[in-house]
């Protein structure tokens, strides 16, 4: 298939199998309105989606959610995906992972586990997760290690756990992680509602920077650390991954196909569904995937800027959420006419009282 915008085959698919989740993280980037069990794609449809993804070039599948372990057909879907030759990653909170369950997933062809951790100890971890989650992390990490799979630990950082950065690095080491991702909260979905409560202080960010720099050197070759900065205080925006509709596809639990996991926030986008059209047609021919490919859509600010090849004008979802126009220059950029919006948010007095994520049925 050819595409007027020069789209090439996608590399990865994030399969959000369900929005159901036993945790209630106030920082959760999933939408405020979660899809329910009866809206989820069935096993046969997921298998078909995975086959189509492989046919158009997807080499890596991330099973995520919600909590993907909440789907009874997870092993079957992993087996199907591995059978196609794709790399299989499981993105999980670890709740629901038992030795037998993990064994069934490994037998099915699971390649890697990405485990979320909410805090460095049970007091903070359980408080942020809104349930007794912390001890499950220790159990899950141990099971993954013993199964011989590589383990990544993912921590979302915010004002309530930023002071724990050093302890979180130690904890990830104790868990035996090959890789630690320390990501400052991105404000989408439920997290946006809690932005004021989540936003770290300038002092916290400065302190974390030093600790991470030191750990990068100290742990080189032992544990890889990826630090995702908080973008609001920066001069330049974070890139829109590798570009809109360039490499990645996300399929929501109900089959909605998105160029990025946060894209359902852009209400002006005509998202399509795998129940109605094939993944290949949606990738190459849909208005949603073509909307921000290339640079025709860009504002003059971005189209005349040398950095457009690096950051693609920043995040489309953030542009929409903060300016109402998904084609606007990301307002984090100091060249954006809307930068004042971000400065105002940064200057506001911070609220306290994180609102826990409400569960899906």
């Amino acid at each position, binding site marked *: 298939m050819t595409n007027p915008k020069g789209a090439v085959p996608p590399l990865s698919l994030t399969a959000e199998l369900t929005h159901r989740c036993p945790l209630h993280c106030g920082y959760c980037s999933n939408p405020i309105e979660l899809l329910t069990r009866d809206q989820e794609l069935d096993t046969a449809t997921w298998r078909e989606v995975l086959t189509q993804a492989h046919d158009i070039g997807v*080499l890596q599948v991330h099973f995520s959610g919600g909590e993907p372990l909440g789907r009874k057909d997870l092993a079957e879907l992993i087996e199907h995906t591995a059978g196609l030759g794709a790399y299989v990653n499981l993105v999980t909170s670890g709740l629901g992972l038992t030795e037998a369950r993990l064994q069934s997933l490994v037998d099915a062809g699971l390649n890697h586990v990405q485990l979320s951790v909410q805090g460095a100890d049970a007091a903070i971890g359980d408080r942020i997760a809104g349930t007794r989650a912390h001890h499950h992390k220790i159990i899950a990490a141990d099971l993954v290690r013993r199964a011989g799979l590589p383990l990544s630990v993912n921590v979302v950082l915010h004002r309530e756990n930023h002071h724990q950065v050093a302890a979180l690095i130690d904890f990830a080491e104790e868990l035996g992680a090959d890789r630690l991702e320390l990501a400052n909260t991105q404000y989408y979905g439920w997290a946006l509602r809690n932005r004021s409560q989540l936003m770290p202080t300038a002092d916290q960010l400065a302190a974390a920077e030093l600790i991470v720099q030191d750990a990068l050197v100290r742990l080189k070759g032992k544990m*890889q650390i990826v630090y995702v900065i908080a973008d609001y205080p920066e001069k330049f925006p974070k890139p829109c991954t590798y570009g809109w509709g360039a490499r990645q596809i996300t399929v929501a639990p109900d089959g909605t196909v998105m160029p990025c996991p946060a894209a359902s926030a852009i209400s002006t986008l005509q998202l399509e569904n795998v129940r109605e059209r094939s993944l290949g047609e949606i990738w190459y021919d849909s208005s949603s995937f073509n909307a921000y490919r290339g640079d025709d859509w860009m504002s003059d600010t971005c189209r005349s800027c040398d950095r457009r090849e690096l950051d693609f004008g920043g995040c489309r979802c953030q542009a929409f959420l903060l300016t109402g126009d998904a084609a606007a220059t990301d307002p984090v950029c100091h060249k954006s006419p809307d930068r004042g919006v971000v400065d105002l948010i940064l200057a506001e007095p911070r609220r306290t009282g994180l609102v826990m994520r409400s569960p899906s049925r």
Partner: protein
Amino acid sequence: MTAEALSGTASPGPRPRIRRGVRLSYDKVRNTPVVLHPEGVLIPNPTATAVLELCDGEHSLTEIARLLADRYDAVQPEQIRSLLDRLADKQVVEWT
């Protein structure tokens, strides 16, 4: 330095191995070898592919250099070492 010179030592040297959770595979859609790893996909060039095919924990760096010198005249052992160091930084291979 040639592969011969490198192999002139008693010790066979370190043996690189593709890390667990990393897979060298062939992609039929793009018609190219690919390295699948936890963070994504790498598209190795022909030399890197040939090196990775020998990263089995059995062949030492010296042996890999010798085997490849026969196939690719231009490839120097130092280049293979630095290629493997880069792949190790990306957690694609490890030294055993």
